[in-house]
C-alpha cells in the first residue's frame, strides 16, 4: 500500500512540470464558450419558465355581460377546451394597475376601457384553429392567442440548448485533441527516459502513469480557467444588465452555474484530459522499445 502510494506520488510529481500552461489556457478558453453559453441560457430559462407556456387563448367579449354565462357554458362544452376562467373587466383593470408603471396610466384613464374576458386553456396544441372557431361565437369581440410567442420562445431556448450541446461536443473533442498532442510531444521528448525505464524493469503502468496525471491535471487546470473566465465575463455583463433590468423594474442577473454544475464541469474537463492522454499513450508508447 505504501509502495503503491509512493509510486503514485512519484508519477504525480513527474506529471506536474509536464502540464503545458499555454495548453491549459487554450483549453480554458475553448471550454469557457460552452460553459458561458450554459450560464447565460440557464439564467434566461429561469425567467422564461415563469412565463405562461400553456396553450391559452384570451376571448374578449362585447359590452353585454348578460351573454357571458351562456358563452361560458358553450366554451366548457367544447372538447378542445380544458379549463375556462372568467376575468371580469373590473378585475382586469385591477391586474393592469398592479403591473409596475401602469397604475398612473390606469388612474389617468378615468373610465375602464377593458372588456370582460375568458381565459381558455386548450387541451390540444392546435391553438390557431380553436381561436378561429371561438372568434365566430356570438358575443365575442376578439380572440387573442397570447401564449404563442411564449411557446416560440421556449422552442427557441430548446434550439439554443441543442446548439450549445453541439458546441460543447466539438470543443470537448478539441480538448481531447489538444491533450493528445501535448502528451505525444512529451513522449517524444522523453524517449530516452522511457527507453531506460523499460530497460531497468519499469512496467507499462509505471511509465504511463505520469502521462495520465499530466492529461488529467491539464484538463482540470483548463476547466478551472474556463470557470474563472466565465465568472469574470458574467460579472462584467451583469454591471450593464443590472442597469438595464432596473429600468424595467426587474432584478434579473446572469447567474454563475451552481456548485454541482461547476463541479461536474471540472470533473468532465479532467476526464476528457485523461482520455486524451490515454489515447496518446496507447498509440505512442508502444513505438518506444529499447534496442
Amino acid at each position, binding site marked *: 500500500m505504501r509502495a503503491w502510494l509512493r509510486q503514485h506520488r512519484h508519477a504525480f510529481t513527474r506529471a506536474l512540470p509536464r502540464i503545458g500552461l499555454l495548453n491549459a489556457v487554450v483549453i480554458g478558453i475553448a471550454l469557457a464558450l460552452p460553459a458561458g453559453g450554459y450560464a447565460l441560457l440557464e439564467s434566461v430559462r429561469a425567467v422564461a419558465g415563469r412565463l405562461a407556456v400553456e396553450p391559452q387563448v384570451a376571448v374578449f367579449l362585447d359590452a353585454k355581460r348578460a351573454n357571458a354565462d351562456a358563452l361560458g357554458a358553450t366554451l366548457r362544452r367544447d372538447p378542445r377546451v380544458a379549463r375556462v376562467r372568467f376575468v371580469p373587466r373590473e378585475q382586469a383593470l385591477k391586474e393592469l394597475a398592479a403591473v409596475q408603471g401602469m397604475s398612473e396610466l390606469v388612474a389617468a384613464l378615468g373610465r375602464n376601457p377593458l372588456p370582460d374576458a375568458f381565459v381558455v386553456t386548450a387541451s390540444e396544441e392546435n391553438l390557431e384553429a380553436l381561436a378561429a372557431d371561438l372568434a365566430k361565437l356570438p358575443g365575442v369581440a376578439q380572440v387573442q392567442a397570447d401564449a404563442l410567442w411564449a411557446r416560440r420562445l421556449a422552442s427557441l431556448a430548446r434550439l439554443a440548448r441543442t446548439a450549445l450541446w453541439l458546441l460543447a461536443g466539438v470543443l470537448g473533442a478539441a480538448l481531447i485533441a489538444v491533450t493528445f498532442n501535448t502528451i505525444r510531444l512529451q513522449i517524444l521528448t522523453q524517449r530516452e527516459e522511457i527507453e531506460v525505464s523499460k530497460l531497468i*524493469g519499469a512496467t507499462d503502468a509505471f511509465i504511463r502513469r505520469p502521462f495520465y496525471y499530466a492529461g488529467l491535471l491539464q484538463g482540470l487546470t483548463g476547466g478551472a480557467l474556463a470557470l474563472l473566465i466565465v465568472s469574470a465575463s458574467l460579472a462584467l455583463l451583469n454591471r450593464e444588465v443590472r442597469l438595464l433590468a432596473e429600468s424595467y423594474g426587474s432584478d434579473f442577473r446572469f447567474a454563475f452555474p451552481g456548485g454541482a454544475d461547476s463541479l461536474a464541469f471540472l470533473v468532465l474537463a479532467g476526464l476528457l484530459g485523461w482520455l486524451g492522454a490515454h489515447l496518446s499513450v496507447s498509440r505512442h508508447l508502444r513505438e518506444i522499445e529499447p534496442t
Partner: protein
Amino acid sequence: MVSFSAVAKRYRGGEEALKEVSFSVEPGELVFITGRSGAGKSTLLKLIPAIERPSSGAVIVNGQNVGALKSSAIPYLRRNLGLVFQDQKLLYDRSVFDNVMLPLAFSTHSTKEAARRARAALDKVGLLMREKSNPIQLSGGEQQRLAIARAVVNRPSIVLADEPTANLDAESARRIVDIFGEFNQVGVTILIATHDQGLVTQYGKRLLHLEGGRVQ
C-alpha cells in the same frame, strides 16, 4: 543460471546473428564473451533480458524460458538483471544520484532506504563525491562506472555488460573490469561482452569466444 540451447537469431532481412549457440553459466560465474564486432556478442546479451527474442532454441534465465515470456512479465525479469551498455544510456536531465535512484522507483523500499542503497552503490564505484554532478560532467570512465552503479543498485543476481570498456583508455578499462570482479566476488553472476581479448585474458576467467554467430 543462464543457459542457451541451440539458440539461433535471425533479424528481419535475413541476417543471421547467432547460429546454434549452446552454453550455460553457473551461479557466481564471471564469463567474458569475446569476438570481433559483428560476431553476435550484443545479440547474445540482448536475448537474456528479452530485448530480442530468439528465432529458435531456448534461452533460460533463472529457470524461466525468456523467449516464451509474455511481454507483461518482462519488466519483472529485468528487475533481477543489471544491464550495462556501451553507450551507458544515462539520463542527462538529472543528477548522478537521481540516475542511480531510477531503478529504485519501483522497488518496495522506503525513500530513505532507497537513498541509502543508491549512495552505497555510488560508493562501490567510487563516485560518492560526485552524486550532485550532472552525468555530462563526468569522464567516459566515470560515466561507465555510474552506469554500473545503476545496474547493481537493486542487487540483481545477474549483471550483463555489453562492451563496457569500448571507448575507454587502458587504465579506465581495467578499473571497470576490476569493479565487475569485485561484484563477482560477492556472488553476482556476470557476463561481459568485449572485443578486447588482451584486456580480459589476464583475469583467468572463463572465455566464450564467438565467431560468425557460433561459439568456438
